């Protein structure tokens, strides 16, 4: 599904990586590893289409993502470093809006189910400003429960700030997505066991 050729990234004057190549098929998991500042987030932003590479191409189903724009975005679920959770909105409202931005609508029952699965059932109508860091992360990740029809998930440090129970839930969601034939790109500092048909990792150097 995704083909990356000769990718290079520069931040300021520093070249973070160059000559990066990989291809990701259905059910494939790409684990991006490396020390802080090695370019993990930059790589994820490049393949998500948020920034442009210094060199090289990112192709989705044979076409460059820069030309696809919304057609690519409709198939992509991106959970970034920042949670994109509005303090003024409740967990449920945040979930509804983030899905609408992805071009999807979910019924109230489906959203309640998602929040229940991620462990926020009792906090669904509370403004997000009263939630802890880990709970806000859960709000951002609740989308994964309703994201079966996104072929590609890009997750930047999804397990940061999560406790053991939530971590197991998210791992199970990623597992199920790979099982369905979806592709996942993620970064993590934690060791997690995810079963995938094709699994490979990229180790970026600091």
């Amino acid at each position, binding site marked *: 599904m995704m083909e990356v050729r000769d990718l290079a990234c520069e931040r300021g004057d520093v070249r973070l990586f160059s000559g990066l190549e990989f291809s990701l098929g259905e059910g494939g998991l790409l684990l991006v590893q490396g020390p802080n500042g090695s370019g993990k987030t930059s790589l994820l932003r490049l393949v998500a*289409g948020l920034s442009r590479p210094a060199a090289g191409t990112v192709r989705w189903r044979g076409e460059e993502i820069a030309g696809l724009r919304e057609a690519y975005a409709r198939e992509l679920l991106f959970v*970034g470093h920042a949670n994109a959770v*509005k303090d003024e909105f409740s967990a449920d409202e945040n979930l509804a809006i983030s899905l609408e931005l992805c*071009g999807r609508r979910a019924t109230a029952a489906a959203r309640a189910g998602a929040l229940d699965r991620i462990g926020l059932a009792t906090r669904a109508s509370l403004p997000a400003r009263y939630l802890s860091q880990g709970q806000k992360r859960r709000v951002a990740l609740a989308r994964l429960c309703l994201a079966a029809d996104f072929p590609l998930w890009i997750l930047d440090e999804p397990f940061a700030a999560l406790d053991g129970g939530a971590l197991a839930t998210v791992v199970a969601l990623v597992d199920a997505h790979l099982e369905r034939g979806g592709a996942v790109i993620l970064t993590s500092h934690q060791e997690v066991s995810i079963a995938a048909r094709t699994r490979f990792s990229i180790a970026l150097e600091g």
Partner: protein
Amino acid sequence: MLGGLQTIVARDLRLSMRRRGDVLNHLVFFVIVVTLFPLGVGAEPNLLRAMAPGIVWVAALLAAMLSLQRMFASDYADGSLEQMLISAHPLGVIVVGKFIAHWLVSGLPVTLLAPLVGVQFDLSQQALAVLTVSLLVGTPVLSLIGGVGAALTLGVRGGGVLLALLVLPLFVPVLIFGAGGVSEAQAGMSAAPHLSLLGAFLAMSCVVAPWATCAALRIAYD
């Protein structure tokens, strides 16, 4: 496409309702600035009548400046803007939605308040009507041009001051033709030429501003 527009407008309006203080702040600011002038200058009707169009318009510009900074800043800080950039809806639609929502909570209330605060300056009914129409046509231009500035200054330290330096000079034509139209009406002449030019500015910024804002947002994230 309309669905995306509706989503963003509804979201931003609901957000403004939850932050009612922010919205009221710049309206109260507008009323206070306009009211300070009659108090400071003294109750000389002819002087006040002559100054009124300029004062109301300058106050409207400053009130718009106060609200512009928030247009993208909080979405930028919490990562929502990132999601909008890779949204299933075209970025142009999202930006237009943000412009509409911004005008509805900043420009429109100022326009509606203007006839009330204009009474302090002993403006004739006709002049008040022209003032209101000029603000109705002119304040969307402030949201549009201001939005470009707000997007360009995202993530810049001291962005607020930079935004004012960037955007206020661009507001000058709006100020001249907005206030000029009211002065014409006071002198018993037709305000139509001024209002038409204001309309032309609105049409032009409708075309240019969304495109420029999209480009600025993409640069901010690159």
